[in-house]
């Protein structure tokens, strides 16, 4: 008679081996399991970075100077905004917002400024508050509508409707105010609060 004792032990050993390998695989895999297919985490990081960049830009260098963001909104300088927000801060190696995106992809931004004014033209007897927006900085690639995007905002103090001071867009005086980008005509000439809204997405 052939002794089959050893066969049983071999089979048990193989079964145990399979179970051990499976367990090790699951344990090692569980450390990074939440990343694939979950865009919420990268969205959260991108939103935080964007809000931080706006906060940096809205911080004045000292008490006697306006913040960069304030100057940008006052002169409606979209090129300067894109240069600072995107190039200097968002995509810089130190802040490393690239890490919140997948390899080979970039972050596209679109900045809009919203302001509040009282409409006395449409119905002079019953003036209505109106929220109006204008584009500060255009995106490099148009938004396709399918990418997950985040929105960050920042309130900015504007002292007046500034149309004459164009020192940032033409540094060499005398400068022609007609060449400088202006705020829309409906922006009231008074100290006011405007909302800078930046929409960011990965493309």
């Amino acid at each position, binding site marked *: 008679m052939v002794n089959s004792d050893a066969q049983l032990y071999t089979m048990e050993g193989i079964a145990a081996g399979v179970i051990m390998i499976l367990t090790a695989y699951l344990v090692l895999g569980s450390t990074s399991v939440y990343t694939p297919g979950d865009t919420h985490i990268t969205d959260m990081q991108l939103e935080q970075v964007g809000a931080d960049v706006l906060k940096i830009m809205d911080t004045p260098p000292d008490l006697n100077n306006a913040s960069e963001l304030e100057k940008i909104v006052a002169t409606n300088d979209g090129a300067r905004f894109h240069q600072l927000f995107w190039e200097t801060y968002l995509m810089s190696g130190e802040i490393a917002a690239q890490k919140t995106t997948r390899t080979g992809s970039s972050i596209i931004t679109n900045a809009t400024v919203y302001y509040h004014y009282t409409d006395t033209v449409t119905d002079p007897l019953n003036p209505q508050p109106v929220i109006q927006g204008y584009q500060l900085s255009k995106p490099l690639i148009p938004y396709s509508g399918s990418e997950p995007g985040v929105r960050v905002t920042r309130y900015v103090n504007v002292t007046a409707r500034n149309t004459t001071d164009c020192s940032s867009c033409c540094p060499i005086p005398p400068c022609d105010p007609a060449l400088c980008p202006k705020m829309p005509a409906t922006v009231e000439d008074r100290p006011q*609060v405007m909302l800078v809204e930046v929409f960011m997405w990965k493309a």
Partner: protein
Amino acid sequence: MEGLSPERKEEGQWIVLMGFLVSIGIFFLALILSQSTIVGQTTAEGVLEFPKNDLQDVRAEILDITKEKSMGSLTQAQENRVMEDIQNLSLHRKSALVEYLIGDWDPGAGNRIVRIHYNNGVFEYDETASVRY
């Protein structure tokens, strides 16, 4: 099944039992595994939902206006218009209700009371700040 002693017949039972125990272990591992996906998502969603940056921004803006008021660079009419700006912008663009009240300067206490109310439907925030300017 001649040649098998009563003790040897029980060996198969041990194998089955061990297999059973290991399968329970794998079941618990799978349970932890399925939980970890939810943990990552709910944490990120919680952070996204909490309007931390909005609150800090609105608060800083209101205190900034208080400062400008104290320095006399804002008239009462201008201050009222600025309040309308903040309220309308936050209501239309951030779907948040913001109300604030900048109190008069109290020479005895040497401060000014600023009341801030914020509500975006999910989160509500109230603050009574004593400002020394």
